[in-house]
């Protein structure tokens, strides 16, 4: 297989959300065939430049986005593709020490203290990695001080806070207040989760309320393009 064919296969494997040979892929028939991770290894061995690989991931995710928009793909399909890219990017960065190939910016994400829900946060984190952001996921039930500490150390461009309980919305407000008080002028704050709303975001001073993952991605892209 020549380099162009390999790149084409890699792109196809991302579109099909086929992570590795153990993964069943989009239509459940791909188990046992080389997936994104195996093809990536072949590509690296063949000496394909990282930037070409990253470009093929970008093209693949654009196709996936269009398939989701046309309802041909569902959320699970889109997430599987994003996970392929996320894991592949980690390998590219670690093996080739290309530094931060995720050049769209740094995103810190967490579910606030008192809240053990992670699904929304995980979906957004996976999609962000797939879209080329450098993501640090602090997990669930994260105390305000731990978030503040990580903002100082990781120096993110964006912070995303998630809460699924009405009771933990208050904690979200607390974290946003601490961030504002500590004055990070360029930091953009995104919030999301079932009980939150645009009105709540306005009230607590968050920059963006995200209704769902696509809303988050769209708003982030808009902000990134402006800055």
């Amino acid at each position, binding site marked *: 297989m020549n380099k162009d064919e390999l790149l084409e296969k890699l792109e196809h494997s991302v579109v099909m959300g086929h992570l590795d040979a153990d*993964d069943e892929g989009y239509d*459940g028939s791909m188990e046992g065939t080389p997936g994104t991770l195996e093809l990536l290894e072949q590509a690296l061995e063949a000496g394909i430049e990282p930037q070409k690989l990253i470009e093929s991931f970008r093209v693949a995710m654009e196709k996936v986005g269009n398939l989701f928009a046309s309802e041909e793909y569902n959320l699970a399909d889109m997430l599987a593709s994003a996970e392929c890219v996320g894991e592949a990017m980690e390998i590219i960065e670690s093996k080739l020490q290309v530094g931060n190939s995720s050049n769209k910016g740094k995103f810190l994400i967490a579910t606030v203290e008192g809240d053990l*829900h992670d*699904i929304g946060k995980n979906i957004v984190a996976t999609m962000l990695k797939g879209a080329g952001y450098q993501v640090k996921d602090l997990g669930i039930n994260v105390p305000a001080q731990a978030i503040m500490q990580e903002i100082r150390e990781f120096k993110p461009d964006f912070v995303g806070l998630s809460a699924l309980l009405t009771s933990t919305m208050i904690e979200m407000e607390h974290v946003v207040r601490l961030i504002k008080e500590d004055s990070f002028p360029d930091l953009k704050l995104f919030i999301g989760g079932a009980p939150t709303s645009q009105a709540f975001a306005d009230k607590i001073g968050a920059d963006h309320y995200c209704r769902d993952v696509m809303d988050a991605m769209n708003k982030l892209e808009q902000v990134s393009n402006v800055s």
Partner: protein
Amino acid sequence: MIVTEKQQLKMLSSAEMQLLHEGSCSLLSRVGVKVTHAGIAALLLASGAQCKGDRIMLPQDMVKNALAQSARIIQFEAPDPAYSFTVNGPENQVKFGTGGQALYVVQRTSNGWVRKSAGTDDLKQIIVLCNQLKQVDFITRPVECDLPDEQKDVAKAAVFRRYCSKPINLANLVKLARLAEVLEIIGNRAHLSFIISLVSSPLVMDSSAGDKFVAIVQKDIPVAISSCPQGGSTAPFSEVGELLQLNAELLFGFVLANVVRPGAKVLYRGIPITANLYSDASPRWCQPDSIRRVALAAQLCRFYNLPCCGTAGVSDQAVPSAQGISEKVLSWVYEAACGGQYINSALGMLEQVMSVSYYQYVIDDIALGIVKEKFSKAQSLAISQLALSAALEVLGCFGIEPDEKMEAELSARIRHIENGLEPYNETYIEDQLAVIEKAVNKSSSTVFMKAARKGLREGYLYKGARLDASLDLAAVAERLESSEGLGT
């Protein structure tokens, strides 16, 4: 309401439920529940549990003992003794109540339906209204007081004490430290029960909920152990896998309760719904796939002869609608037919669990009356026919003349509820246990979502048409206007 033996619907055989039970026990002994609460972990370990890191494994004997010890009969007394009732695990009496923790109240205005934030005054008004609604057998906290957390429990108890005539379910306890004051305010603790979500899916005990649960069980107050996983996000997308996990999470609660107090008055509240993987992973509370799974959880509870706290009637629609009414009717029918006994959230709820509406309470009271009459008078009908006939009659009651298209859609929904798409056998169960174990070990719910792709293509999530028709709500408005004590 009584569900006769003939009307009892068994969508799974005893052998299939036994396989689920064994699978859940295997999950508890192999994977266990993550418990970071040192006191509760020590209590379980001293009673025969084992640990691996922060996971507590329960041997099958502990589950067996808990199931044998747990109370079968729970009395729910009411401030007005005429409303008191008993839930008896092996019997088929069904009671319906409110529920929620809704953030909003949906109100009817001259400009249409408007959503406003809910608060203490709504709590009072809803209790006053539900005291007067014939089909409301008990009142579970529908909305929270709009007060700081420290004051919520006491304020809520005071409103219930002053206005509620029926058995009181305060649902959650915001601050454990206020429990003694709450009991003092309520006066007779026999009037009171709670709901606790002890285990977050998948298989992680919430320490704060654990403290509250232990305290309530120690005081011998009835408490429903609740688990509400979402297939495809916090549990396997497969109904078999989701039921295995849900059952393990609830059985863990029964074990803990009976370690704390043998013979504990605990109810089994399983709400295995699905996540909307077509779009944003939001919960689908009242679609056929979820109605089926929740009904199966009720059947599983009754397999153990445990008191069953069901959930039905949490519409996915944002405002009162024909679609919402049909969702509720199917949900009530199947939850009752499959074994639900103390059915929460049955009236007033909209937009998953986000909103309630005064109008919807009255609509549901009328609709539930029709459903109950069907169970009482149409005893020869198959449940599928009963459900269709009840849905059509209820829609007619609100001025809708269902056409063939509507009837076909309702029939398709009923078929999806009654007809399973997955095998219940040892191999398939083992596959599902492996998915759960992988998700637990990876600590990531995206495992479930990725594993959902095949099931999505095989139609596990029902995709049908919406029932669109205008409702005639004149009679509802009239009933609301004539209700005593509202708006004062």
